[in-house]
Structures are given as structure tokens and as C-alpha cells.
């Protein structure tokens, strides 16, 4: 159904606006901290969404897609990371370039792994007291 793209697009409005807004708050810093934090949070959130809500069918598929691909997907960004890194290379700030790229790579992957751990903790079967 083509309405899927409408929902994704609509959710993407919020993700993009949120990212831009946070970026504006943190504007003027010498290092793109906001992009890094946004990407880590998004990586964590997407895995939690999939491993808790999608896997256990707690939300309808359309909502999962809209929130996952639309909201979270557009909230996170790879192009900004690449462009900021390329800018650092252009200005000769090679250390910052390496730092920006590797921090995003490592911390976001760890964020995703943390999301998996969190999902498993949340969905862990609770022990019942009393009758077994």
C-alpha cells in the first residue's frame, strides 16, 4: 500500500526537525557533538524498537515502519558525519577527522548493542511468586 510512504514521510518530518533543532542548540561548537549524540541515541532506539515492539508484535507493522524508518531513521544521519569529517580533512584537522569518524562508528555500534541488551532485559520473563 502506498500509504506506507506517506506515514514514513510524515514521521521523517519530525525526525529531521528534531535533529535540526538539537543541532541549532549545540551550534558553534568546534566538534559535532550533537550529531554524535543523536546518532548514538537513534541507534539504541531503533534496536529497542525492533527487538521489543516488532519482535513481540506489540505495535502494528505500519507504526513500527513509521517510527523506525521514518522517525528514527531520519533522526540519525550518515551524510552529516561524512561531511563534517571531510571538512576536518579539508582544513587539515586530521585528528578531529579521525576522532569524529571513529567515535561515530564505534559508539553507535555500541549503542545498538546496548539497545539489544536493554531489549533483552525488558523482555526477560518475570519470575512469579507463589504457585510455580
Amino acid at each position, binding site marked *: 500500500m502506498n500509504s506506507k510512504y506517506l506515514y514514513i514521510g510524515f514521521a521523517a518530518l519530525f525526525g529531521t526537525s528534531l535533529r535540526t533543532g538539537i543541532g541549532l542548540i549545540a551550534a558553534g561548537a568546534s566538534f559535532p557533538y550533537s550529531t554524535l549524540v543523536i546518532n548514538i541515541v537513534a541507534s539504541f*532506539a531503533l534496536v529497542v524498537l525492533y527487538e521489543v515492539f516488532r519482535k513481540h508484535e506489540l505495535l502494528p507493522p505500519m507504526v513500527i515502519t513509521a517510527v523506525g524508518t521514518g522517525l528514527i531513521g531520519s533522526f540519525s544521519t550518515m*551524510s552529516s558525519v561524512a561531511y563534517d569529517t571531510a571538512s576536518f580533512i579539508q582544513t587539515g584537522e586530521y585528528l578531529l577527522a579521525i576522532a569524529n*569518524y571513529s567515535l561515530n562508528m564505534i559508539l553507535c555500534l555500541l549503542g545498538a548493542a546496548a539497545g539489544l541488551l536493554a531489549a533483552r532485559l525488558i523482555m526477560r520473563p518475570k519470575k512469579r511468586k507463589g504457585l510455580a
Partner: protein
Amino acid sequence: MDKLRPMLPVSFPWTTMVVNIAACYFIGLINGHGFFPAFQTMACTGFLGGFSTMSTLNDDALSLLRNGKILRFIVYLGMTYGCCLIGCMLGIYAF
């Protein structure tokens, strides 16, 4: 993209990778050369920023790892990060 997929090896997140690399090339192209500010914001922060994704990238990578596809995991991350940066620089130095 979906028409190409049957030809390609399965279980590799080609779509995400191609999307990310393309977005990085275009942000290099647009931001690197400068257009009038409204278009630049709309195209770069707006469209390309939303089009590219870090969250799906890492979810894909994690899935590959969990399914034991270690080599694909390394290739996926290596190619994505490598080609994204190269693509971006190609865009910046395009003309």
C-alpha cells in the same frame, strides 16, 4: 533497487549502503559548492540528512553479527564508512 536485488547475494544490506553512499556524495556536492541557503538547508540537513541513516546501518550490522556473518559485518561497515567518506570528498571536489 528492488528489481536488482534478486541478482545480488542475499543477506547483505545493499539498500542501506547504497542510500548512505549516495547521500554522502550529494551532501559533498551541495555543501561543498554552496547554493542559496534555503535550498542548501532543505537539501542537505533536510533531505540528505533524513535519507541517510546511522540507526539502520548499525541495526543491519548488528543483525549480521548476530547471524554469525562476521565477514559480511566487516565488509559492510568497512565499505559503508570507506565509500561514504570517499563519496563525500568526490562530491566536494567534483568541479
